[in-house]
């Protein structure tokens, strides 16, 4: 998956974890190579948590993804 410019400070592991998170809680299709799909799901997650909807995997977004949480998705399938 091509990484956007702003992702240079984000490790590959963090991207994997983020994709796993979005797949689980925001129904992100991890098989797609479309970066837009990932950005859309990131924005959806950021909107839910009241973060700026940048579509970037920034430290604040990563911090929320790491929090212990309920396993039920945040959005309706």
């Amino acid at each position, binding site marked *: 998956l091509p990484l956007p410019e702003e992702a240079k400070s984000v490790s590959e592991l963090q991207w994997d974890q983020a994709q796993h998170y979005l797949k689980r809680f925001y129904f992100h299709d991890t098989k797609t190579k479309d970066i837009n799909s990932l950005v859309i799901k990131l924005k959806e997650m950021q909107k839910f948590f*009241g973060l700026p909807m940048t579509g970037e995997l920034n430290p604040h977004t990563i911090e929320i993804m*790491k929090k*212990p*949480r*309920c*396993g*039920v998705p*945040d959005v*309706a399938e």
Partner: protein
Amino acid sequence: YSLFPSSPKWTSRVITYRIVSYTSDLPHFVVDQIVAKALSMWSEQIPLDFKRVRFGTANIMIGFARGAHGDQYPFDGPGNTLAHAFAPGPGLGGDAHFDKDEYWTDGSSLGINFLVAATHELGHSLGLAHSSDPEAVMYPTYGNGDLLDFSLAEDDIKGIQRLYGKRNDL
């Protein structure tokens, strides 16, 4: 607050629940008390009553499990996902599962407060999805806020009453 797609809810006024397995972190009677308290927090707001059964199939089956445990959502060890529950319905519907690999507490020690998690998961069991209100019990992440006077938030009450109406409507 938000509801699940198609807004599933229980249609009976009395909902049965059964605790099928426990954590070793808390005495059984404490788990029993906490589940009863969590359910009472919801039932105070809506015209539903909960009846505990000890055998057979209940509407809401509650249990602790680790790793794969018979649904499509295996637990992931300590941290991250703490628990999950299913919207009202037959079979798995309404059931609430808690990750046995977490350290569960009654609030008297460090760990995951079982009352908070149980109230949240049983909210799903009754038909509430996640809320984006950080003050709501139905907010998806586990917080470290003040748990001494833990109670439902206005948002939770609005959501559950949208499904079932108010208790004093009876």
